[in-house]
């Protein structure tokens, strides 16, 4: 089984985010980046499927040169090779623009299964996988926690709201967007990191894949959210802050 996992490099969870001078995006200089969390779960599911059924896991990503580090991380965890869509203007493309790039790169690979995380931790749109399926003419399902291979396709466990689930059968090839928490994530081993250095990563310029990069949904401005509540911050040592809080909860909010 050939599985393509579309992954994204995003600012690290604890990174200090600043708005850039133009007010249209974040300041990228000095930022630390990491593999998007639900993409890590998509990769994990792909690696488990390969261990069970054999085949190949190809990681695919789009972005500037720095995303190469995230591809290497995925290779170190066990992916077989990487595809890097070299694209300096990723943040100026909308979900359809990005999905067009990915679709053009996926097509010649003819995979049996395409996995991606359900959403990115930076833009949080949760659309790329679904649009990718539409562009490739493939069936899809989203918010998937578990994938079983069947004779003709897959049976997947889909998360619904409020603790409900559903099983979905779909034929191969298919696109699935993976929810976090379905598996325990593996760490890269030293051997894996060593091996990753010799694995193939092919770079494809974005200009060779999809010409149209003008967005339909245009991000005009980025701003800090306004506070909805006036939060009373309690300062001092942990002991002082704790004592002040209990006092407030008892006599001001009267909830204790």
């Amino acid at each position: 089984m050939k599985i393509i996992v579309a992954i994204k490099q995003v600012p690290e969870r604890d990174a200090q985010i600043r708005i850039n001078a133009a007010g249209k995006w974040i300041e990228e200089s000095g930022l630390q980046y990491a593999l998007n969390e639900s993409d890590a779960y998509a990769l994990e599911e792909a690696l488990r499927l390969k261990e069970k059924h054999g085949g190949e896991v190809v990681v695919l990503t789009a972005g500037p040169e720095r995303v190469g580090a995230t591809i290497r991380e995925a290779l170190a965890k066990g992916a077989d090779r990487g595809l890097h869509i070299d694209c300096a203007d990723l943040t100026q493309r909308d979900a359809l623009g990005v999905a067009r790039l990915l679709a053009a790169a996926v097509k010649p690979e003819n995979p049996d299964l395409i996995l991606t995380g359900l959403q990115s931790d930076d833009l949080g749109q949760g659309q790329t996988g679904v649009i990718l399926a539409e562009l490739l003419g493939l069936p899809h399902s989203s918010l998937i926690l578990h994938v079983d291979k069947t004779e003709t396709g897959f049976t997947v466990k889909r998360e619904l709201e409020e603790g409900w689930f559903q099983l979905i059968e779909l034929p191969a090839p298919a696109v699935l967007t993976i929810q976090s928490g379905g598996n325990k994530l593996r760490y890269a081993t030293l051997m894996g990191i060593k091996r990753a250095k010799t694995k193939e990563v092919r770079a494809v310029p974005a200009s060779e894949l999809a010409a149209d990069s003008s967005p339909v949904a245009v991000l005009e401005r980025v701003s800090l959210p306004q506070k909805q509540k006036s939060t009373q911050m309690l300062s001092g040592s942990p002991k002082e802050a704790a004592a002040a809080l209990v006092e407030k909860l008892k006599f001001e909010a009267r909830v204790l």
Partner: protein
Amino acid sequence: MSGIWVVIEDRDGRVSRGSWEAVTAGQKLAALSGQSTNAAVLGAQTESLAAEVAAKALAKIVRIEHPLLAAYTADGFTLALQQLIAAEKPDYVIFPHTYQVRDYAPKLAARFGQVLIGDVTAIADGPLFTRQLMQGRLNGSYRHSGNGPCFVSVQAGAFRAAEAQPGAAAVSLFSPTIEPAQIRTRPSERFRDAAQTVDLGSAQLIVGVGRGIKDAANLPLVQELATALGAELGASRPICDNGWLPMERQIGSSGQTIAPRLYLALGISGAIQHLVGIKGSQCVVAVNKDPGAPIFEAADYGIAGDLMEVVPALTEAVKAARQ
């Protein structure tokens, strides 16, 4: 092209709360753009759902009915709405931002060469649509620039269901053409994994723990505080994803919705999926080492500090106050 269309979703056969909120958003957009607001209901039998929606100030209600729409599938819903949109040529199509909408609305929009502006929290003149970026730490203002309908989904709670204006709308039937072979996925009935034994929904005091706890070995710290308070223990998604606490203790859109007198969020950054689940809390306290964490936006009281230090101090202070 004209008009605003709201796509209604049902919950157990009734119009969902999120759908009323989407109607309010549609009416707000109508006031900004001087257009009429309409609604579509989908299913195999939609009469009662349409009757419910028809009591609002809407121009038209369309019942999109087909036997193949009995159970939700992305293929079926996309085909059905594609045909209605082709016939009505709306300027805007508004959805509640639910798991179901996330599953098919991006596909539907792409079919028209458009992009869903999803999880919108506010609509301003322009129109400009606000949605959250960077896990709620920033807002982004989006403008639609395509030659086609603008697809928008609105975040749960961002618009008020009660503000949907009452009225009387005309109802008509729309029969889309769908072939069985066009539906490629086969969904099962929904199920729950195990009988839920923890009912966070009715708990009055809840202590929630998040990533800031760093290691499962540190959980007793939080448990001790919960015990001192007589509170139930809950968690944000990553804690349950890691298996540190059972899934039934998860608070948020994929877990339980809570409405306690007091909610203490410890080491929880406040992703929107979590904030949606705690909206009903009377008093929210946040402890987080990052003073810029979005959880503070939702908190009445906050302590910016390391929870390893703050939580034991809090446990002592609670014990002292209870003596």
